[in-house]
């Protein structure tokens, strides 16, 4: 590398300064959640700003989970169940369909793929009202499966798996054919175990998306027993009286699992976004 000139050094220093300032701003909301979650209401609303809780009020969390009107446990349990189920089944259905569209010769292949692309263009804005009607008709309102079901099928995931399997090495399948495996055996024993990276990437994105989604659970899960953690948070905001310390403790509990997932799975998430972003 050539030596940097004075001007370049200055420019670089400036860039670091701006990036650092932005980084601090980006982290402030996280700081605020933690700060407020560990304070009493009086401390939060005190006119004298206190930067750090000197005596963290850990009992806020105890209070939150003991609060029968907050439904925090219910929300967390529902969200975990909904997001995990969606992750597993959406990946299974989409990888099966994607594999078939890419690798199993059929006369209907083009038509089916075309229809998948067509549904890809349907925005949620147009389907949520009639899907609610459908759910009301089959008795899915206020049930967990009613919240889960529409998210199990993603045209986008099918499309991405198809693109992935188009470039899948055919030697693996040929080896399976030699061993007398049918398509099901090849898919289950050879293709799936060799798709771990893409399953992880798209799976984490499906999990995160489902955990954070708001409109559909709000529409279909009106009873507290089917609330997700996002609905619990929103109810805090729209409730009659607002308990600030519980509210921020709830926000921390709702956000923390995903921040951990992001920090540990960042590589897969970035790959997933890159893979899907470049394909749009």
């Amino acid at each position: 590398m050539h030596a940097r000139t004075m001007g370049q050094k200055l420019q670089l220093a400036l860039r670091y300064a701006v990036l650092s300032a932005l980084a601090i701003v980006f982290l402030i909301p996280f700081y605020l959640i933690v700060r407020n979650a560990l304070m009493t209401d009086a401390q939060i609303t005190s006119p004298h700003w206190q930067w750090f809780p000197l005596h963290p009020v850990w009992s806020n969390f105890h209070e939150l989970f003991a609060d029968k009107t907050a439904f925090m446990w219910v929300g967390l349990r529902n969200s975990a169940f909904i997001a995990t189920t969606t992750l597993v089944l959406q990946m299974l259905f989409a990888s099966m369909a994607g594999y078939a569209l890419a690798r199993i010769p059929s006369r209907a292949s083009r038509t089916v793929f075309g229809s998948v692309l067509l549904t890809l263009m349907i925005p949620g804005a147009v389907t949520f009202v009639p899907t609610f009607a459908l759910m009301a008709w089959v008795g899915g309102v206020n049930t967990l499966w009613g919240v889960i079901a529409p998210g199990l099928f993603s045209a986008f995931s099918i499309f991405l798996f198809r693109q992935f399997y188009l470039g899948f090495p055919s030697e693996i399948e040929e080896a399976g054919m030699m061993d007398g495996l049918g398509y099901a055996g090849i898919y289950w024993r050879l293709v799936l175990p060799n798709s771990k990276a893409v399953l992880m990437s798209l799976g984490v994105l499906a999990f995160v998306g489902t955990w954070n989604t708001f409109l559909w659970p709000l529409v279909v899960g009106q009873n507290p027993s089917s609330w997700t953690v996002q609905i619990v948070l929103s109810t805090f905001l729209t409730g009659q009286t607002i308990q600030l310390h519980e509210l921020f403790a709830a926000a921390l509990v709702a956000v923390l699992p995903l921040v951990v997932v992001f920090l540990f799975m960042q590589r897969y998430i970035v790959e997933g976004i890159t893979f899907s972003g470049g394909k749009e």
Partner: protein
Amino acid sequence: MTSTTQTASKGKSLDRKRLSAELSFWAFVTPAIAGLVLFMAIPMVWGFLLSLSRAQNTIHFGHFIGLRNYTDLLSDPDFLNSLWTIFVFTLFIVPTTFLFSLWLAIAVHNIPRGKAFFRTVFFIPTAVSYAAASLIARMSFFSGQSNGFANHIIGLFGLAPIQWIGTASPPWYWLVLVSVRLWLQVGFYMIIFLAALQQIPRSLYEAAALDGASGGFTVFRYITLPQLRAATVSVLLLNLIAAFQAFDEFYNILGGSGSSSGNIGLARPPLVYIYNVALSSQDFGRGAAGGFIITFIIVAFTLVQGRLFGFGSAKEGR
């Protein structure tokens, strides 16, 4: 004689192979396709029929009223206002997100040290839901009290607390709504740009240096930007479609508590309008019609954008 029986049996086995492939194909695609039919195709058809029906307090169609729901909506000032609201929001959020995430990607890409750190910091808000981000913005960061974070900071400079969310003029709530969405999504789009930047061959820059293109902007304009075309189209498109369907932060930041309607009247986006009409007033016909109007607008804008920037396919990329 022998040869004909051979070809016959060969043909038979080929037929059987084809049949088994055909059966396997359908076995593999049926779960996903059935789901898409159930939750995409059927709702589209049902929604369309609902939108042509008087479906008040009923989820069934049948009381045909033609385009009444559509004409009613388009003459309802509340609905027109919601269209205007989302139009302004989109017009603002799409370019700012685009420029901000592109700038972040280039800045992070071109620093010698700390790339991973900055990437993680800007990306991590993507993990947060709109509901949680709205909560922080409304109750802490942009709280109208003097103990809100923003008010505390401007207070250090001797400024009086501002009602960030509750007042119509000046419309500070736009700043809140835009900040929340920017915070949540620029990291995501930055990742897309970063990936694209990494794929630009170094030789292009070396060739440009040989040709004497030195100034940073010239290189950016004639090399970096054209190479980012596919990523740009993808970012603009994803962003536009998401912006038109904004719901979560409007609902949670401006929505009322208890029986009051809060500040949602300041800026009610179409999806909140549709939600209220369908779920609160139980007018499913009108709600469904609203969904089709929004979809029509999204499709129209997507096509216009496609015309302007291309759809990012390999052919158009050249």
